[in-house]
């Protein structure tokens, strides 16, 4: 009876993982396809990799995706952290107000946020492109940074800052040398969320960009009209990079775990 249960569990998890990974495996396989078809494998070739590197639009979209993700992460992490620290010492009504406003982009469907920004930028007469896309990304990233930093601040001793200043720190020094190190795990996870949100964003970017500034998602979307298997090659490269990064992180944590055990 128990064995049967275990078998059933294994089958369910295997089917689940197959479901989630099938499109990725499919993408990887067809990045090596000889023909343009996305459903029939006709033979092995590396031509889509070669074409990918020669496709200027595609390389530019990768560049913009990374540049905007890095900038949006940096800006939103700094502003989000400072705001979260400020909020932890603000009056209740200010806290409530900011968290209400922050909930809007988190809870609204992306398309609603997107059309609001589109109209806002147009009404201001701004040229849609890199700057509007970056501003939009910063806007939807900050609430996530605040959300992940705030709980860390709450568990902090409120006297810490005063103690640091009593011992001769300027407020700025107290902030950087005392508060920030204490909440660094919250800042880091906020930055990670911001990066992935920005890197993967499609809907908001699609509505607020213009003048040929595209990210990977927008390019993939416009590609549905004319099939270009180079996008499969690009995805395969991203999968490889993520796999390497994950393995690396795992090895590091494995090694540090071993070191800890040895000390004990």
């Amino acid at each position: 009876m128990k064995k049967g249960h275990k078998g059933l569990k294994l089958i369910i998890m295997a089917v689940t993982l197959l479901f989630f990974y099938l499109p990725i495996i499919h993408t990887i396989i067809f990045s090596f396809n000889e023909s343009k078809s996305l459903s029939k494998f006709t033979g092995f070739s590396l031509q889509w990799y070669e074409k990918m590197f020669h496709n200027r639009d595609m390389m530019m979209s990768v560049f913009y995706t990374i540049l905007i993700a890095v900038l949006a992460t940096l800006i939103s992490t700094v502003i989000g952290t400072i705001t979260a620290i400020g909020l932890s010492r603000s009056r209740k009504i200010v806290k409530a107000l900011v968290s209400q406003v922050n909930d809007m982009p988190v809870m609204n469907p992306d398309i609603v946020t997107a059309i609001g920004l589109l109209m806002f930028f147009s009404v201001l007469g701004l040229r849609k492109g890199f700057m509007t896309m970056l501003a939009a990304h910063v806007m939807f990233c900050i609430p996530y940074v605040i959300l992940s930093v705030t709980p860390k601040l709450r568990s902090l001793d409120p006297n810490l800052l005063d103690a640091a200043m009593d011992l001769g720190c300027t407020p700025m020094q107290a902030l950087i040398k005392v508060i920030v190190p204490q909440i660094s795990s919250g800042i880091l996870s906020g930055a990670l969320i911001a990066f992935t949100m920005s890197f993967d964003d499609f809907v908001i970017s699609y509505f607020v960009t213009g003048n040929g500034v595209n990210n990977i998602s927008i390019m993939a979307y416009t590609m549905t009209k004319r099939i270009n298997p180079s996008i499969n090659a690009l995805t395969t490269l991203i999968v490889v990079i993520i796999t390497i990064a994950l393995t690396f992180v795992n090895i590091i944590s494995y090694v540090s775990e071993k070191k800890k055990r040895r000390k004990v």
Partner: protein
Amino acid sequence: MVYPYIVWAAVMIVIPMLLILLYAFTAKGNSVRAFVFTLDNFKKFFSDPVFLSVLERSLYIAVVTTVICVLLGYPIAYIIARSSNISSARLLLLITIPTWINTLVRTYAWRGILDKTGIINYGLSFFGIGPVKFLETNFAVVLGMVYNFLPFMIIQIYNTLNKLDENYLYAAADLGATKFQAFLKVTLPLSVPGIVSGITLVFLPAVSSFFIPKLLGGGQYVLIGNVIESQFLTAGNWNFGSALSLIMAVVIIISMAVTRHIDKKINPEGEYED
């Protein structure tokens, strides 16, 4: 230290939302200065059976997607929560990793898989079935949505199941409950909050999605998100587009209120009724 962000949020978050309200209730024309109050945008929507059927289809697809995600997500989350700590962390990671890869590309891959010459039909041909037309059907669109949103449901349900105090289950067993009864009377009611937040995270993107129907449903397949997209990016009718997104927002708010109401009815003090 807070004020710079308050100014930024007022400008970048609040004003765009107010613009949607403004445009929804004013007559056509993209100039803010010359607006005239009107309800025509809403009249246009509710008097046209085409738009109403689009809303109906969007709701139908979103509800079906959400129900499937609950039915699939619950057992999966349950299995993960009941695994040992190490393997449940690994399983969660395995489910999260695919979401790091571009959504558009992963959804697009289903086109190849579901195609008449794709691997699913290839597999079916051994049983003498097909080729079945999967693409450009409700099935493909729901599959694309379940594929994209199921991880949210699994993680939400897992979180509540993981927090569940196992002593409750021992207590239930001591009081003579079978494992199945304990699940029905203890575990399930206590995990309702996770199901509810999972429903929010699935229903919301499902009802507003526009790229999944476009990629898997084809150009003729229209949900409310697609109408909003075309009003802004091709038709250039901001007023009607804003009204549509307000209608969608109201539909979402009503659905969420209904879900919460059912949650409270089922689970006033952790009681489960059928």
